[in-house]
């Protein structure tokens, strides 16, 4: 619809291009005049850009409340070729607006948090001038994510998809000269990008197949054709959905392409919170939700999605149990919760998945922000302790939980918000996570018992490792001087955390069993399985969560664990070899290294040295040197002797005469 028609329906819809353009304007302003504005100005512009996007998203939501149905706003024509036109069209429907609200809402809170976090972080790392760059990239991310969720066709979605991958790379490698051996962060960023690329390959092939089959990439066009005549496109749809699944495993960190997410924790904590917890990784879930019409027509693909999600959920949860880095635990937890969401969309329960997406955004972002607060506190404690000095603090890892302890007394606000987030994640009623997780478990119990078993085990482990984390970080004795000297963070850091904590607590109201707001909202766009509430199941999952927390308390809470940082984890002797596997992430990275990375590297070296340098360069060099030797040879003719010049004249004459003779 062009803007004039929109004005008749509701002029608010015409605002939708601004959700992408405002963050871009914000980043351009920061690029051009940011240096002169100082840190306060930079943070203000970035947060305002993100906040303005949020405001527009709210307006769009209210407008959708009056006017039902998807509204497409065409912005400009991108590809006009004979037989195929593609425009940059925005789609305003309940699904996209929900994502817009989550991304911009949580994004704005994280922007505000980051203004203070990065202020300390750039000073801790000794490079205050890099502050502006962070906010430029962050705004770029918001713009790309908005592009992704507001797209009306697969190609624009893919543009946003790639864009957020790029921002992820840029932000993970933000401290590109730091990390293990000085290149650790850069390697992590590279890993994220390359693994994501494999997923992007899947999405691209899916888009190609869609194009050749349907000759359009618009959602409406494809879905209507599929719904009219599903059996005609069986093979095509199966191929498309499976390739999209590859993309989902890349972007949403499922088996087998999840390996980049734990390494991505090398980026600053606001990045982990925003990109790798709340928004970018949910893009895969959004893709499947959006393509629900296709997945419904391919039950085999749905089953594949379901199994991938459930297996990932359990697999990642087992690894999270034995990790020592505070952010790595949350990273694996994210992978596990994404597994829940992916399993949910695989089972067709789109509303349940979106609900869990929203609540997960709340409490996972909160957990990361609070973890960031803890890390800041540890860094502050380190600086004020005896060994503290600014700049190069590589001998001390402020993120290692073995260095923490008893932070509950020193960081009260952080503790309480962290606790809220952890309880929500574990699925304690009546916090938000309980309702959303319970819906997924209910659907699983009705769909497939195996999936249900996997998910319920994962839920149990979730409660266990979150309890473990709480007890290790906040209780017991301070295990290092830094923990003993830790101080609470500033208000700018704490206020977003508090807001997210409140949302984590009351977020369940979005889709309570009786008044299912979210279901009614989402099903306007995508028809999924209806949400059900089975009371015995709910009680069981709640009880399991409590048992998980209790067991964590038994192992880590009662005895003062890890009195010195060097002591082994108390869980290790109990589980033995299994614990070893969990701690080593089940050696997946090492297996990938042997199976894929090293052969590929040797292939690259083979192509680089003998093939490229040896053969192809040699051809070019040979041409050059042969011409040079030709020149050398010809140079000998110019010897300055008149007689040889005369001889040349004669030879020329002879040649001409010969030609005339032959003619």
């Amino acid at each position, binding site marked *: 619809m062009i803007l004039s028609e929109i004005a008749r329906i509701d002029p608010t819809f015409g605002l939708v291009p601004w959700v992408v353009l405002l963050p871009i304007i914000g980043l351009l302003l920061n690029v051009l005049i940011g240096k002169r504005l100082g840190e306060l100005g930079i943070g203000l512009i970035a947060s305002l850009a993100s906040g303005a996007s949020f405001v527009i998203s709210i307006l769009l939501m209210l407008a959708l409340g009056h006017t039902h149905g998807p509204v497409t706003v065409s912005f400009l024509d991108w590809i006009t070729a004979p037989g195929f036109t593609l425009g940059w069209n925005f789609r305003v429907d309940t699904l996209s607006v929900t994502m817009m609200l989550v991304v911009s809402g949580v994004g704005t809170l994280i922007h505000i948090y980051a203004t203070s976090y990065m202020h300390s972080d750039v000073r801790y790392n000794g490079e205050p001038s890099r502050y502006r760059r962070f906010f430029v990239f962050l705004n770029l991310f918001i713009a790309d994510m908005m592009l992704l969720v507001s797209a009306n066709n697969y190609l624009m979605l893919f543009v946003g998809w790639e864009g957020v991958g790029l921002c992820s790379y840029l932000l993970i490698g933000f401290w590109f000269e730091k990390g293990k051996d000085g290149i650790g962060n850069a390697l992590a960023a590279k890993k994220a990008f390359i693994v994501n690329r494999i997923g992007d390959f899947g999405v691209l092939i899916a888009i190609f197949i869609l194009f050749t089959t349907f000759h359009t990439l618009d959602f409406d066009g494809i879905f209507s054709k599929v719904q009219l005549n599903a059996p005609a496109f069986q093979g095509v749809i199966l191929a498309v959905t499976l390739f999209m699944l590859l993309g989902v495993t890349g972007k949403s960190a499922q088996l087998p392409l999840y390996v980049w997410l734990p390494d991505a924790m090398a980026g600053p904590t606001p990045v982990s919170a925003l990109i790798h917890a709340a928004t970018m990784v949910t893009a895969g879930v959004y893709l499947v939700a959006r393509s629900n019409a296709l997945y419904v027509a391919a039950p085999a693909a749905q089953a594949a999605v379901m199994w991938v999600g459930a297996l990932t959920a359990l697999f990642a949860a087992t690894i999270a149990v034995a990790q020592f880095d505070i952010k790595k635990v949350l990273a694996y937890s994210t992978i596990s919760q994404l597994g829940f969401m992916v399993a949910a969309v695989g089972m067709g329960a789109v509303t349940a998945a979106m609900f869990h997406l929203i609540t997960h955004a709340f409490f996972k972002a909160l957990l990361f922000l609070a973890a960031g607060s803890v890390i800041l506190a540890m860094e502050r404690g380190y600086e004020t302790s005896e060994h503290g000095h600014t700049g190069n603090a590589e001998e001390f890892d402020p993120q290692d939980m073995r260095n923490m302890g008893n932070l509950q007394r020193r960081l009260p606000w952080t503790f309480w918000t962290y606790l809220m987030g952890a309880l929500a994640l574990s699925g304690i009623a009546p916090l938000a996570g309980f309702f959303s997780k319970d819906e997924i478990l209910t659907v699983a119990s009705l769909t497939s018992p195996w999936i249900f078993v996997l998910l319920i085990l994962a839920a149990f482990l979730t409660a266990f490792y979150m309890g473990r984390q709480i007890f290790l970080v906040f209780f017991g004795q301070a295990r290092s001087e830094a923990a003993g000297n830790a101080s609470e963070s500033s208000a700018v850091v704490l206020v977003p955390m508090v807001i997210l904590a409140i949302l984590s607590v009351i977020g369940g109201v979005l889709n309570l069993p009786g008044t299912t707001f979210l279901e009614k909202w989402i099903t306007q766009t995508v028809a999924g399985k209806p949400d059900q509430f089975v009371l015995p199941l709910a009680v069981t999952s709640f009880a399991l969560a409590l048992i998980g927390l209790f067991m964590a308390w038994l192992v880590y809470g009662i005895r003062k664990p890890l009195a010195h940082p060097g002591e082994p984890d108390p869980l290790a002797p109990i589980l033995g070899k299994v614990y070893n596997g969990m701690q080593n992430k089940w050696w997946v990275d090492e297996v990938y290294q042997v199976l894929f990375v090293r052969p590929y590297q040797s292939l690259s070296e083979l192509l680089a040295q003998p093939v490229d340098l040896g053969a192809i360069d040699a051809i070019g060099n040979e041409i050059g040197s042969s011409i040079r030797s030709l020149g050398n040879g010809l140079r000998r003719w*110019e010897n*300055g*002797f*008149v*007689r040889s010049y*005369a*001889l040349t004249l004669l030879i020329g004459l002879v040649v001409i005469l010969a030609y005339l003779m032959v003619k």
Partner: protein
Amino acid sequence: MVPISYYLGLSAILFVTGILGVLLRRNALVIFMSLELMFNASNLLFVAFSAYYKILTGQIFVFFVMAVAAAEVAVGLALMVAIFRTKHSVDVDQVNVLKG
């Protein structure tokens, strides 16, 4: 009663001998003399054709060729003398400063 092709052949042989003289000898004066030989060969050709076609034009041309050849020898030898003053040699191969 001599066929004209004989004269043509003789002229060609003398001409090529003159060319070889120019190319093979290093003494500048001998090169000049070979040049005169070439002139003469072409003069012979002109006169032979003049006799063959019974017109005078060939001989007039020979007249002019002689005049110009004389002038050229005068200037050329003066040039050789001038070069000899600096180089103290009439070896043509020693004039190779334009070597590239």
